[in-house]
């Protein structure tokens, strides 16, 4: 099972956490599409310890027990 976590306003109508049935070749872009998540609304994606912008992460193939985080543009200090 692939676990997906969402934050800030990406949680609206999707919830905090969604589980995905794993299938061979499942990419982060596939997950975003199924969540009706426009990657232009996403700023940072973290998958199994690797973090980067959607453009660099979208084609990453997840593993059976992957944990994927989607963050919108956020900041503070």
């Amino acid at each position, binding site marked *: 099972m692939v676990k997906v976590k969402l934050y800030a306003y990406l949680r609206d109508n999707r919830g905090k956490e969604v589980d995905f049935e794993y299938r061979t070749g499942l990419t982060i872009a596939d997950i975003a599409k199924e969540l009706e998540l426009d990657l232009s609304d996403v700023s940072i994606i973290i998958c199994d310890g690797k973090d980067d912008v959607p453009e660099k992460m979208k084609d990453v193939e997840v593993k059976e027990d992957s944990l994927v985080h989607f963050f919108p*543009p956020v900041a503070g200090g």
Partner: protein
Amino acid sequence: MYGYMGKILRINLSNGSIKVDDLDFELAKKFVGGRGLGTKMLYDEIDPKVDALSPENKIIFMNGPMSGTPTPTGGRYMVITKSPLSGTIASSNSGGTWGARLKYAGYDGIIVEGKADKPVYVEIHEENVEIKDASHVWGKLVGETTDILQKDKDTNVLAIGPGGEKLSRMAAVMNERDRAAGRSGVGAVMGSKNLKAIVVSGKKKVNLFNEAKTRDNNKEATNKLKENPVTGQGLPTYGTAVLVNVINANGVLPTHNFQKGFFDAADDISGETLAEKYLLRKDPCHRCPIACGRYTKTDKVEGGGPEYETIWAFGSDCGVKDLEAIIEANHWCNQYGVDTISVGATLAAAMELKEKGLLEDVDFEGHALDFGNAEAMVYWTKKIGAREGFGDKMAEGSLRLCKEYGREDLSMTVKGLELPAYDPRGVQGHGLTYATSNRGGCHVRGYMISPEILGLPDKLDRLELKDKPLWVKIFQDLTAFIDSTGLCLFTSFALGADDYANIYNAIVGTEWSGDDVLKAGERIYNIERQFNLEAGIMPDQDTLPKRLLEEEMPEGPSKGHIHHLDKLLPEYYELRGWDAQGFPTKERLADLGL
């Protein structure tokens, strides 16, 4: 003179004299204002070796040229003095409205000298300035003091609480009740001078060099801030605490006094949870379209905050997952006038000392300082503010506390200032800013979290070392300029050096480029460095706690990493034009006009 009021108020509390100095416009342009100009004045007027709590130290409240103008976020001011906590230069920034009001009263800044023989406060209404008896508010909390001294809605009150009166080295200067110039113990310097408060009112106007151009610039800056997803949506909706989850997901949310970087209950104390359960309304500073400030309420307290740093310090750093307790601790810090970061971090250090069996002799009064004990965390926060029981020892800060128990290595400080909410083992550039910050362990002297974690303006690999010293230098120099203008650092999520140059030129009448902005920032950074060197803060203090340099992160997404300061520092010194030992060269200082 444009942008500046041209007047500095000089108040000597030893002899009661009140004078008005003319501002040297050339000096003002060279050091901009706020942090830069205040530091230059302090450097010229005191011996950096003075005891920070002696009458020989001075405390300067300084505005920038954009404070009090219609420029978005133009209302911040700086408190500059020698820090009683770190012995370094202290320049502590605050928002709210007090800074802008001081401009409306007709002053760019105030220099306070000497020491009153009894508690006093200063009341300023334009040209009418009086030193008044403060015996009726001495000993009172910040909220009650503000209620008593605030005459009407056009009056703004800056005050210290019992923390500053009792010389806690973590004491803050507060304005509008819950806005804080929080760091470096600046409130204790006010307390050491028997100065309880400065009350300001006035309705003067700041003259602008080019009003039409300023209007255009403001419109453009406001649009950029509103259209930027961070300043236009993320910060207004969730406040700074929206960071809790992303910092934790990267494994760099310091937990249990930096023993690890991942907190299982992070979402319980996140900005999302704060907004859902406790947020009453946004609480913006003067002329701020971002409005990241929070106003929250629980069954026990209500008021401004908490910010991300506060939530981390009392939350994961103390192992506490009770957000109501964190809001309460924040409330008491504001009321007693003490810094939430340093107080939370000192409590976390005490918890680790206790965990290691080193506090057997301490009377915990039935409130054991164990990681995760929310009730004890709130109890001892109040005791630190009041300097009672074991709280009296903790009010000296984490470094002095840990030294007393023979474990200096457990103090997560740089140059004596408690580190904030990011573990540098998983953010290499940010660790370099901690080590080289002129006021010690600080996150807002070069916020490398922005590119290394948040991808702003570009995403950098947070563990990579290459090019990080250059990024750090540029961020530090730009920040030094912004801190000197009176604008909020958060504008830099949407604006760049060229934007700031355009805004500055239209207000002051200069013809600066983005490069000039960075050079002014570099000049400010170097004069701070000179102050520290003359104060005896040597380059060997450009370091991090041993734990972060030697102990691998034990778990979480940053598992196995240490901070590689030794590989970053030589290149950083070289880029700064300092020698290999970290001393600024004569050539670089001359190039900067120092």
